[in-house]
């Protein structure tokens, strides 16, 4: 949990209030990563190989919504000091990379379990 806290808070134990925000953020990492993979690996091939543009028309907005909710929760988690500044940028960057969200989900879970 140590790295999730800002430098000024490292000598103090994590606040109990930070945990729900972090667990929600972790779930949203998974949701964002799943919708991105579904978009890239299912919807886009269906559009270009099977001539089904409806797949992208559906999955695109679903992923867009998941990304917005993720950004909103990330801003809250940072403000509540559930994650530090460097982690915030890492999580945001990972959201743009396929499988990056799964790594964020795993990393946040591993650190929270410590």
């Amino acid at each position, binding site marked *: 949990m140590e790295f999730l806290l800002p430098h000024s808070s490292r000598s103090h134990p994590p606040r109990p209030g930070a945990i729900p925000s972090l667990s929600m953020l972790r779930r949203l990492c998974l949701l964002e990563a799943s919708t991105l993979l579904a978009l890239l690996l299912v919807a886009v091939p269906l559009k270009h190989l099977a001539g089904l543009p409806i797949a992208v028309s559906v999955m695109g907005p679903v992923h*867009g919504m998941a990304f*917005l909710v993720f950004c909103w929760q990330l*801003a809250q988690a940072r403000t509540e000091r559930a994650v530090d500044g460097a982690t915030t940028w890492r999580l945001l960057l990972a959201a743009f990379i396929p499988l990056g969200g799964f790594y964020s989900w795993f990393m946040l879970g591993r650190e929270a379990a410590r």
Partner: protein
Amino acid sequence: MTYLWIKGLHLAAVLTWAGGLVLLGVTIAALRPVGEAVLLPHEKRLGTAILHWDRRVTTPAMLAAWALGIGLASWGGWFGALWLTAKLPIVVALSGLHGVLAATLRRHVERHERPAPAWLRHAPAIAIAGLSAIAWLAAIKP
């Protein structure tokens, strides 16, 4: 016809979200000088009421504005249009601002934690500038 109904609902959701966002911004800007001092009972009561309003009205309105907006853009074939491409980063930034303001007020009112960062005193102006840019882009569609 359905498109216009969804557009109307999107506008209603955006207006509700905008009102709540500016309310949060003004509240944080007003409470910021309080600093480490304990909030007075009436300040705490007002802050709690605004947090309730945010949870029950402003946040659902924001989610509805996103969902309806994405639906409209998809249905209308607007994705890729310049005005929408310019509008989306502003929407993401305002959503982030809303998240920061709501979490700051929660920390302030419910946990009596340290005062908000100095830049948040400009939050109402940032919100108004972002909302104005969105209105201009959506109306003019350059």
